[in-house]
Every structure is written in structure tokens, then in C-alpha cells.
């Protein structure tokens, strides 16, 4: 597993370096100015962007024979898939760290950037939820449809993730009275459903991958 994680890390590293530089420059600007919408955009970009990068490079293994070669290594197919999900989670955490740092600096410099601190939590939960739903949809599609359709699967999974989040938020808002309970319910439902989807997606992807031939 250690080798697979290193493999995934190296795969994302080059893109992640570029994206990190972009995020640092953008972060300095976002922290310097007082803009709620900019901060929301930054947090979402950080949370989703890094994990999107991680998913985007999955196809690179199939440009070379490495995807096939990996199956001849002393690892199980389950480990290969597990490492993909762990890698996705790792880069989500990196994104969360960027977003959290810039939000923290902004708060330190200008005070709480939202009406209530709870909104910050909402923003982070939304970002994590989009990233997890995206991963949950992308990985099965990627192994089912093949690496050559990587880009379209990425777009589909990202749009679906955003769509699912919007539906959940709308349904929760419709079913509950406006207020703190409604927000908390929304957060719990978003977190739980995205985490569940991410976890359940693993056996689905594995069952697809176990039948794949290279």
C-alpha cells in the first residue's frame, strides 16, 4: 500500500505543484481583501480543485503500460482501488488545509468573514461533500468506461456532485423551518450522504476493476 500511495502521490505531484502556486497567489489576494464571495470561491476551489487534480491524473497510468504493470506487482486489486480513494481523500485534506489557512488569515485580519461562524462550517462541509460525491461518481465511471473518457467522466462527476448537493440543500430547506436547526440538518445530511456515497463507491469500483482486463 505504501508503494501505491507513493505512486499516486508522484502522479499528482507535478500538477499539484502548479495548482499550489496558483492557490498561494490567489490566497494572498483573497486574504488581503474583504470579500465574502471571493472567500467562498477560494474555499470551494481549494477543496474541489486538489481532489479534481488527483482524479484527473488517473488516466496517465494507462498512457504507459503502468496500469497493466501494477497488476503484476505484489498487490491485490483491492489495494490498488483503495489507494485511489485514499489518494483522493489525501488531496481533499490538502485542499482543506489551503482553504482553512486562508479563511483563518482572513478572519485574523478582518474579523469573521460571515454573518455567523456557522457559515464557515457550512462552506467547508459543502466543499468536502462536493469532492466526496465527485470521487464516488468518478472512480466507478473511470474503470467502467476506460481511461480514454477520463475528461468527460470528470466533468460529469463534478456536475453531478454539485447537482446532488443542490438537491440535498433544497430538500432540507423545504422540509425544515429556517434557522439553525435547518442549517445543522443540512450539514449532517450533506456530510453523511457524501461520506456514505464515497464509502459505498469503493466496493462498486472494486467489483468493476476485478473484471477489467489489460
Amino acid at each position, binding site marked *: 500500500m505504501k508503494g501505491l500511495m507513493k505512486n499516486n502521490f508522484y502522479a499528482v505531484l507535478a500538477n499539484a505543484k502548479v495548482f499550489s502556486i496558483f492557490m498561494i497567489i490567489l490566497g494572498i489576494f483573497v486574504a488581503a481583501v474583504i470579500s465574502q464571495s471571493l472567500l467562498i470561491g477560494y474555499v470551494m476551489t481549494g477543496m474541489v480543485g486538489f481532489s479534481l487534480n488527483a482524479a484527473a491524473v488517473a488516466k496517465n497510468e494507462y498512457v504507459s503500460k503502468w496500469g497493466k*504493470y501494477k497488476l503484476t506487482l505484489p498487490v491485490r486489486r483491492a489495494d490498488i482501488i483503495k489507494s485511489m480513494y485514499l489518494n483522493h481523500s489525501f488531496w481533499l485534506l490538502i485542499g482543506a488545509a489551503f482553504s482553512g489557512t486562508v479563511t483563518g488569515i482572513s478572519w485574523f485580519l478582518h474579523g469573521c468573514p460571515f454573518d455567523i461562524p456557522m457559515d464557515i462550517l457550512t462552506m467547508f462541509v459543502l466543499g468536502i461533500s462536493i469532492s466526496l460525491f465527485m470521487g464516488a461518481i468518478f472512480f466507478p465511471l473511470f474503470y467502467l468506461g476506460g481511461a480514454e473518457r477520463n475528461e468527460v467522466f470528470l466533468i460529469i462527476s463534478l456536475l453531478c456532485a454539485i447537482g446532488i448537493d443542490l438537491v440535498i440543500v433544497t430538500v432540507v430547506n423545504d422540509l425544515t423551518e429556517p434557522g439553525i436547526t435547518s442549517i445543522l440538518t443540512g450539514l449532517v445530511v450533506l456530510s453523511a450522504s457524501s461520506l456514505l456515497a464515497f464509502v459505498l463507491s469503493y466496493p462498486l469500483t472494486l467489483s468493476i476493476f476485478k473484471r477489467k482486463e489489460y
Partner: protein
Amino acid sequence: MENILELHHVSKTFPKSDFKLDDVTFSLPYGTISGFVGENGAGKTTTIGCIMNTIIKDRGTIKLFGREMGDEDTDMREDIGIVYDGDNFPSYWTALQLSQVMEGLYTRWDRSLFQKYLDDFCLPGRQKIKHYSKGMTMKLALAAALSHHPKLLILDEATSGLDPVMRDDMLDLFLGFVQEEDHSILLSSHITSDLEKVADHITFIHNGRIIMTVSKNDLVYRYAVLRCKESQFRALAPSDILAYRKRDFQIDVLVPDGKEAVRKYKDVIADHVSVDEIMLLLVKGERI
């Protein structure tokens, strides 16, 4: 246990293709190099895919080190090194990054041995693989395949794209590898001259079927091609003919025992046969 690798009646069909692997049976004894020869699309890579479980066979058994290898048998894959034709590794890696990844995958990964191969092969460790030539990437793949001390090497067209000097170095390396009695190599190659140099046995595959397995000794000392006229060909006993091919003014006939054939059929000319010629006769020729 005499064989490091045994395939019995292995079959695989592909619903979207006419090609199928049909009842493939052959074995690779310990301490030997076995050549695996066939034209493009004959089924060499598919067979190797079945051996390594990258392709899931429909029927038959494949035993490595005396037992069948499933996805869970990671310990067995510790003893196998593989080299595919072309780019085995992501081009954005360096050789040193490859070593770091492999170190986390193989329990017996030998970093110093890998470094020794990099030095011997003049491969820059810090340069990205995408800047390597084809020969360099093949050498790197071979270094990676050898650096975890495997017992079985499976090489799928590993010498193609290499110049003759480089190929010769590789072949020496292969011969050195099988000096250990429990080491073996399955060498799939188009370059039949390589096989003539190093292989102990040669297995011919055509259209997904094994058509012949022959030891190199038999190939050199027994097998022959008879150059016959039409009348001489008609006089041959069908049981002596493995395959024949009509040319403009003669018929080439592959026989399993050249000396015996010369004794039996006085006027025919018997030539020693190369792997290339056997392949051509078996693939393009006709059988009785």
C-alpha cells in the same frame, strides 16, 4: 516439482474479436530460458496476460511455482519480474522515484542492486523517463524487473527496439540470471536470432494455438528443411512431414529428423533450420 510455470489447456475468448486463445499447453522448467514465438496477434501477450492475471482466462490451469496464482497471492508475485514492450512506467517519473515506489511494493526490493543496474546501463537516475530513449526505457524496465530478486522473469518483446549491441548485453544478462538453478525466463520475442542464442526451448504459437514446442538441441541437431522437387515431395511419408511450403521451383518440407530423412530419401537436400524458417513453415506452410 520440475516446472516453474505450467499451462494446461488454457483458453480465452474475446466476445468483440474473432481471436481466441485455444487450449494452450506448455511448461517452463526450472533453470531454463524458454522462447515464445509467434507472429503479431498470435496470442503471446494474451498468454502472458493470462499467466499474470491481467487477463482472466476462461478455462484451463496455470501453475506458477507449483500452484495457481490468484489476486490474493501477492507472495507469488514477489518472485516474478516482468518487462513489457514499450513504456512500462509513467513518463513523468525519474528512475529514483520508480525505485521509491517499488521499495514500497516489494518486500525484497534491493535499492543498491537497482542503483548498480542504473550505473551499469548508464541510466541517469534523476532524469525523467520521458527523456529516455527506447533502449534506455527497456533497460530501466529490466533493471526494475531484476531488482527484487525474482525467480521467474517474463519478458514480452523486451528486446525489440534495442540495437544489436544492447540486445547482446541483455542476452548475456539473461544467461547470467538462469545460472541460478531455480531461475527461469519466458522470453517472448519476434527477434528469433535472440532466441537461438539463449533459449533452451522454443514454443511456437499461431492464431491462439500452440503449434510446436521444441528444444534448441533438437532444433539444431534434428530438425531440418528438405528442399524437394514435386516428385520427391510425393515420395515422402506423411508421418515425416511437419509442414511444407511450395515455392517457385521447390517445396520446403519441415521434418523432425533431418539425418533420418536423408537416410530414408536418398536424393533430397536437407538444410539446418532456423527459428525463423520453422516459424514461416508452420505459419505460412501447410500441414498434412
